[in-house]
C-alpha cells in the first residue's frame, strides 16, 4: 500500500523529481545560483571507497590516535583516573603506560577539581595535557577550571597566555548506570566562547579528531561515548596513518539524500543512519544524514546547504531537550537563508526531560532510538 502523502510532501516529491529530470528547471536553478544544491542531488556521485576496507573498534582507533600524538610530541602527556596501571577504566589507554612510561601517562587520585586545575596549569606553562575524565559527569566538579581557568584565559590575557589542553572522556548515556552517570554535556560546553567541543561518531572520527584536538592550541572538550568504544567501523588506509587529522568544525554527510535532513552527533548518528534505511525501505524517502562531528564550532553551512536541498529537517541528540544542541541548530536555521527553504517546521529528537531512570523499560524511553527518529521524520514529512 502506498504511503499516505500530505500535500506538502507531495509537492516536495514532485519538485525533487522535477529537478532531477527537467532540463529547463536545471537551467533555471543554475541561473538562480542553486547550482550547488543541484550538484549535491546528483546521486551518481560516488561515496569515497577503496577496494577492501579494514575494520577497527572505536577504542582501538582512539588508542592509536593517543599513542601517535604521545609519540610525536614530548609535551603531550595523558593524565586521569586509572589511565596508567589499570590501562584505562574503559581500556582506552591500554598499553600506553608500558610504551611511554610513567612520566607521560599518569594516574591521579580521585580529585577532579584539583587534577583538572593542575593539568590546566601545566598547559599554561606550555605543556599539552590530555586530561581524561572517567565520565564527563565527574567533570562537573572541575567545570570552573575548564571554563574559567582554561577557556577564558587567552582572552583575559589579551592573547598573551594560551592553553593547549584536551579534556576527554565518555559523555552521555551508558547502559543502566542511572541518573548521575548519564548526562550529556555537549550543550553546556558548546555555549562557552574560548572552548572547542568535538563529538565523534565513527572510528575514523575518533582517530582523526583526537589528533586534531591535541594539536589544536585552544582548550578542546572531546566528548566520547562509552557504548561506542566497543563498536566496530570500517576504516580507510588513509585514516590509519599517523598523519591523518580531521578538521575541527566540518560535519560529514554520512548518507546523501534528497527528501529530508537528519542531523545528529555521537551515537545518535547511528540511529539516524538506521532510520534513513527504514525511511527508504518503507516510505521511499531518501534521507540525508549529517554527522556533526563538531559541536563548537557547529558546521551550520553544511546543514543550511542540506536543508536548502531537502526542505525538511530533524535534529537528533541524546542530551536534555531544553537549551540543547537541537535548539541551537533550529535557531541557526531560522536565522539563515535555509528558513525560506523549509517546507515544514523543524522537529527535535532529544533525550527525555527526566533524570535517567535505571530500569531498562524506562531507560529505553529516556534516549532517542531509530523508531523515534523515524517517527519524527514522518511527522515532518507528513507521512
Amino acid at each position: 500500500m502506498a504511503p499516505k502523502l500530505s500535500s506538502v510532501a507531495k509537492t516536495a516529491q514532485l519538485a525533487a523529481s522535477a529537478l532531477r529530470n527537467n532540463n529547463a528547471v536545471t537551467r533555471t536553478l543554475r541561473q538562480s545560483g542553486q547550482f550547488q544544491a543541484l550538484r549535491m542531488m546528483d546521486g551518481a556521485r560516488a561515496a569515497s571507497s577503496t577496494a577492501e576496507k579494514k575494520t577497527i573498534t572505536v577504542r582501538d582507533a582512539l588508542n592509536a590516535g593517543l599513542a601517535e600524538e604521545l609519540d610525536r610530541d614530548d609535551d603531550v602527556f595523558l593524565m586521569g583516573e586509572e589511565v596508567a596501571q589499570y590501562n584505562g577504566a574503559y581500556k582506552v589507554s591500554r598499553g600506553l603506560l608500558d610504551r611511554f612510561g610513567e612520566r607521560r601517562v599518569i594516574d591521579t587520585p580521585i580529585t577532579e577539581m584539583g587534577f583538572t586545575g593542575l593539568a590546566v596549569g601545566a598547559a599554561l606553562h606550555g605543556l599539552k595535557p590530555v586530561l581524561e575524565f572517567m565520565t564527563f559527569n565527574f567533570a562537573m566538579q572541575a567545570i570552573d577550571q575548564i571554563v574559567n581557568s582554561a577557556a577564558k584565559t587567552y582572552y583575559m590575557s589579551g592573547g598573551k597566555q594560551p592553553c593547549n589542553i584536551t579534556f576527554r572522556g565518555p559523555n552521555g548515556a551508558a547502559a543502566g548506570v542511572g541518573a548521575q552517570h548519564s548526562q550529556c554535556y555537549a550543550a553546556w560546553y558548546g555555549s562557552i566562547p574560548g572552548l572547542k567541543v568535538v563529538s565523534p561518531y565513527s572510528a575514523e572520527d575518533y582517530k582523526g579528531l583526537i589528533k586534531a584536538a591535541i594539536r589544536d592550541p585552544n582548550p578542546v572538550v572531546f566528548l566520547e561515548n562509552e557504548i561506542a568504544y566497543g563498536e566496530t567501523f570500517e576504516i580507510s588506509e588513509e585514516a590509519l596513518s599517523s598523519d591523518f587529522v580531521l578538521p575541527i568544525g566540518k560535519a560529514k554527510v554520512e548518507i546523501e539524500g534528497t527528501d529530508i535532513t537528519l542531523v545528529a552527533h555521537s551515537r545518535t548518528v547511528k540511529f539516524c543512519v538506521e532510520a534513513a534505511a527504514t525511511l527508504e525501505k518503507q516510505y521511499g524517502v531518501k534521507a540525508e544524514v549529517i554527522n556533526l562531528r563538531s559541536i563548537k564550532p557547529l558546521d551550520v553551512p553544511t546543514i543550511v546547504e542540506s536543508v536548502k536541498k531537502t526542505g525538511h529537517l530533524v535534529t537528533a541528540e541524546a542530551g536534555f531537550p531544553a537549551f540543547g544542541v537541537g535548539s541551537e541548530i533550529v535557531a541557526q536555521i531560522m536565522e539563515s537563508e535555509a528558513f525560506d527553504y523549509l517546507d515544514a517546521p523543524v522537529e527535535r529528537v532529544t533525550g527525555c526531560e527526566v533524570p535517567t531512570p535505571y530500569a531498562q523499560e524506562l531507560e529505553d524511553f529516556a534516549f532517542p532510538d531509530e523508531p523515534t527518529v523515524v517517527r519524527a521524520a514522518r511527522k515532518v514529512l507528513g507521512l
Partner: protein
Amino acid sequence: MIRSVRPLANASTRIAKRSLATANSDLIAIELPPSSFEGYNLEVPELNFETEKETLLKMYKDMIIIRRMEMAADALYKAKKIRGFCHLSVGQEAIAVGIENAITAEDTVITSYRCHGFAFMRGASVKEVLGELMGKRSGVSYGKGGSMHMFAPGFYGGNGIVGAQVPLGAGLAFSHKYRGQKAAAFTLYGDGASNQGQVFESYNMAKLWNLPCIFACENNKYGMGTAASRSSALVEYHKRGQYIPGLKVNGMDVLATYQASKFAKDWAAQGNGPLVLEYETYRYGGHSMSDPGTTYRTREEVQHMRSRNDPIAGLKATLLDKGIATEDEIKAYDKAARKYVDEQVAAAEADSPPEAKMDILFEDVYVPGSEIPVLRGRISDDSWDFKNKTFLNKVY
C-alpha cells in the same frame, strides 16, 4: 608501597648565595629576630645571613613603587577611572618584593586577584598595570582583563576565582618537574582561600608526586569581612599541609620574607618537594575598593599595624641603622618613586582604550589562525566571520 613519614627537614638545605654585587659592593649582615620564623616539621632558615647593599636598596625601591602604584590606583578608582573590582595590597608589599628578589626568571608565580604588586615585580611596568586598571589598550592585558587578570612572563595571574589558582600552581610545578627544570612555582592564596577543597587536593598531588610547589598563604587575618578565626578551624596556615613541612614567616618584614623565599626556592630546586609557607601580613585597606575595611575591624588595629609593623618603615629603619643610606638619600628615593609613578599614571591616562569596534571585541577568543569560523554578536548581523574578516550582515 607505603611511604614512611618524612623526618624533620634538616639544615642541609643550605640557601644558595645570590649576588647582584659587583666586586666593590658591600655585604651587609642581617640578624632576623627569632619571631621571624616558626617551623612545622621543619628546621627554620638561618636567622643570620648576608646580603648585598644593592639588594636592600632595590627592595626598598620596589616596595615604595608598589605602595605608590597602589595608592594611585586607589585615587583613580575614587575618580571613577577604574571600574569593577580593585583589590589593593597596601601593607602587603614585603611578600611580592621578598619573593621576586629570591627567585629567577625561570621560577613561576601565581596568585589571586590581589595581584598588582606581583605583576609589577614579574616585569609589567607601572604604566601597563595602571593602564590595564583603566581599561587602556596599552594595559598589560590590552584592556581585556582588568584588575584581576594581569599576566607577565613567569606570572600566571591574577585569578578571579578564590582558590582556583592553587591547583594551577601545582600544575606549573608539575611542568617544571616534567621538563627537568630546577625551578619552583610560588602558589599564593589567602587565609580565606585556604579552606578550599582544591587546596588540599593540590597538597596531596604535590606531595605524592614530589612537585616543586611552594604553597604560600598570605594570611592578612581577614577573608573579605570574615576574620580568620571565624572561617578556619585551624588558623595556623603553615600547618594545614599536614604531611608537608611548613614555615610561618613575618610577612611585614621584607628581610624575613626574602630569607624564607630563598629557603623555599632552594628547598624545591633541591628536589625536596612542596612546602607550605604562611606569610603573616596585613592589608591597611579593605578587601577591595568597595569595602571600607572598618566594619569588621577597629581603626586602632589598622593604625597599630601601620605605625608599628609597616614593611617600608621597617626596611628604612634597617637602612638607616646599618648606614646603608642616610635620611636624605631615602627621602630622595621616596621622591623619585613618587615622581616615577606620577609620570606613569599620566602616561597611562593619556593612552587610549581599545577602539570601540566589534572586530577588536572578537580578538583572542581563540589563538589566531585557529579561530572558529564565526563568533556570534548580539544579533546575527553582528556575527564576526574570521575567514573573510568581516561581519556576516545576514540577508534573509
